[in-house]
């Protein structure tokens, strides 16, 4: 099973993890890292590396970041250069789909699933229900 590491500003990572586990129950090989405003990038990089080691077991890990260009993304970019798979723009639809589909797939396959799910999860509910 592919491990999942969430890295975001503030407490978004913890909140996303909490929301996901509220819906589908506690998940293994799944860690959340939140970044405070004064946090050191080098320390954050170390924390992400440690989290990846903790979750990856035999199948590697996927790092999901909140925002392109922010410090979580910058800290993760070092890992991306070393071959880690990092995706920016995590939302709850992406996270849910990734958590339930991460067994028996490659990291490339899971990445494609994640990207697709994130977009498909954005729905104009009013238009869908009322046509307007």
């Amino acid at each position, binding site marked *: 099973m592919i491990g999942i590491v969430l890295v975001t500003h503030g407490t978004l990572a913890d909140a996303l993890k909490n929301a996901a586990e509220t*819906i*589908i*129950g506690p998940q293994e090989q799944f860690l959340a890292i939140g970044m405070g405003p004064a946090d050191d990038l080098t320390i954050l990089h170390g924390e992400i590396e440690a989290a990846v080691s903790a979750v990856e077991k035999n199948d590697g890990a996927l790092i999901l970041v909140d925002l392109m260009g922010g410090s979580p993304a910058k800290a993760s970019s070092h890992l991306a250069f070393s071959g880690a798979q990092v995706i920016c723009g995590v939302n709850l*639809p992406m996270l*849910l*789909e990734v*958590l*339930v*589909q991460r*067994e*028996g*797939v490659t990291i490339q396959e899971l990445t494609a699933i994640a990207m697709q*799910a994130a977009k*498909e*999860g954005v729905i104009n509910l009013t238009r869908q229900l009322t046509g307007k």
Partner: protein
Amino acid sequence: MEHAMERTVILGNKAGLHARPAAIFVQQAQRFQCQITLSKNGKTVNGKSILSLLTLGAEQGDQIMLTADGADAEAAIDRLTLLLEAEAE
């Protein structure tokens, strides 16, 4: 031998096919190679996508058509039927 199979199932879980039961279904479905769909009232969704499954809004007692298309379709239908018909998780 590849073949497509379908079976109509009555959903047993009191909580319906939401949240954790849906997650468990997808995790199980994903282990099979075949394509899996569920249909309710003419709406068909991909059984390996939790987001799609949640849009089906299946409740206890609903008649669901389960289809599997591929090499392990029979095993998938058998396993997933048990899961859908079960009353508890």
